[in-house]
């Protein structure tokens, strides 16, 4: 009997918390397709605001996607080999390097941005290109890729797998592509989703690094919140959700799958 009560109380509490979190999201999403937010949904449903957002801000959406893709490529090219090397070495130096690469997780984005501006802000062409934002994103997301790949590598006995592939005649590159990469796949995939999600949603760093010519989606969002009609800002948010939620769901699915194995 007591168990039943406890269960009900917990359920109600959980639902309340969920509601508290989700109601504003739903309202905001609805606002993006309402004629007039102050009159409410009965004023009619429209795609007008979405169209307006597209006109004003489609550039920021493209730029966000572009940066996310390059950021993904860079973190794959740097992060996967780096994780492999770090997993293979177990000396003090390797652990030290790992700490250094992982450091950006602990440093506020604003500080990373400031450091970048102080050091490289002088190179005008670089400073004003989206490459400047990209570098910030790579610094910020690389630790997540590295950690994720390191975790799978250290959970499989890949060292022995590699030795047995070598005994069968496989050269280093053959081993890397036929043994290491396929066995690290789940970690690489999880890392990749994380990198793309973080890059698309990144605001702190990007806000410091952007120029009026190089606005990403979240920076554009902040801009619209400050200066546009509430409906436009909401429609913009809706677009952001549509982009980011599939990524989050994929990430969740993937981590469920790897937990099961």
């Amino acid at each position: 009997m007591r168990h039943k009560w406890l269960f009900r109380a917990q359920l109600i509490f959980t639902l309340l918390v969920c509601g508290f979190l989700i109601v504003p999201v739903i309202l905001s999403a609805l606002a993006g397709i309402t004629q007039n937010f102050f009159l409410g949904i009965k004023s009619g449903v429209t795609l007008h605001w979405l169209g307006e957002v597209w006109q004003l801000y489609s550039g920021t959406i493209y730029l966000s996607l572009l940066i996310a893709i390059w950021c993904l490529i860079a973190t794959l090219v740097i992060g996967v080999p780096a994780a492999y090397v770090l997993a293979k070495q177990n000396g003090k130096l390797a652990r030290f390097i790992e700490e250094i690469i992982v450091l950006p997780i602990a440093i506020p984005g604003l500080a990373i941005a400031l450091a970048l501006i102080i050091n490289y802000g002088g190179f005008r062409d670089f400073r004003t290109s989206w490459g400047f934002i990209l570098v910030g994103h790579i610094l910020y997301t690389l630790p997540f890729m590295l950690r994720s790949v390191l975790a799978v590598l250290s959970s499989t006995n890949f060292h022995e797998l590699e030795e047995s592939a070598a005994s069968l005649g496989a050269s280093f590159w053959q081993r890397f592509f036929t043994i290491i990469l396929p066995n690290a796949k789940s970690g690489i995939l999880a890392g990749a989703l994380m990198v793309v999600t973080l890059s698309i949603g990144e605001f702190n760093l990007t806000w410091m690094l952007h120029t009026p010519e190089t606005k990403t989606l979240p920076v554009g969002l902040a801009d619209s919140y400050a200066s546009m009609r509430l409906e436009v800002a909401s429609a913009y948010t809706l677009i952001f959700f549509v982009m980011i939620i599939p990524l989050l769901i994929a990430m969740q699915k993937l981590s469920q799958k790897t937990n099961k194995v």
Partner: protein
Amino acid sequence: MNPTATSIKLTNCAKTFADGTQALKPLNLTVKAGETIVLLGPSGCGKTTLLRIIAGLEATDQGGEIYFNQQNMTSIAIEKRNIGMVFQSYALFPNMSVAQNIVYGLKIRKLKPQAIKRRLDEMLEMMQIEALAHRRIDQLSGGQRQRVALARAIAVRPNLLLLDEPLTALDASLRDRLRSEISELLQKLGITSIYVTHDQSEAMALADRIVVMDKGRIVQIGSPYDIYHRPKNEFVANFVGNVNHHPNVFDANYLTLFRPEDVEIVEPTKGDFEAKIISVLFLGDKSRLTLDCGFKKSIYVDTTLRQNFKTGMKISMHVEAERLIKLKTTDNGPATVKES
């Protein structure tokens, strides 16, 4: 014998790890073509290290050299040595099926698809794992994994087969069955093989010659028969079976030992010595008696006599002179044995 079988020669091979551990003292070893050698010794004596040096997974210290058929392989990488290797934990590739695992080395060698298919079928049949060909590795039992690992190592027709405690992870009955299967397989294939174990019965069953190791050294090399009946020193005698110190033969220069199964239980007047039974372990086919003859060390006796031995009984014993193991006492330190 397999015509492609390779002879192995190691000269002066030692191994000092980066942290300063000297896992192997400089040693020499010759393995004849087609021979099965078992490296036997207690944990930490350097068996795996020696095997990895032969494989090319570790480099020997300066001065050591490795020859396959007169050809110096010392600086040749493992992937160029054409060996087959079976690891204690099998090291099967989890991203591939059983069949893909077996043909991995053949694909690397760029064999024609038909040749690969033929070799795969041959291996599956030889190891009796046809039904498992399309299974994933994590759907196999320990014994099945072991067969796949063997098939994968043999499929490439290696010059040399290296096995590092391949049966240790299996339970006892499966271990016995696979042991005799491996023994048959090695005979049939005639590949030069080096097998690492710390289990003396495994070594006896498989080896043409046993290499007994201790603390990074080779202590004795010989046939299983020689190792058991003519051990070089007390360490070897003890490691491959039980031995007793003779209670009433005293010689400053010799140590006189005998094995529990070489004792005859005789009439009280005809014995060399007598002792009191401390405990009786009835094993069905034989009884193992532990006896006290007044020394610190007890004496163990195995007997097949159908007699109901009781604790506290006194019995008389005799050991035939040719069954005594006589060791020069100077040989009882950690011996350095040069291979003849």
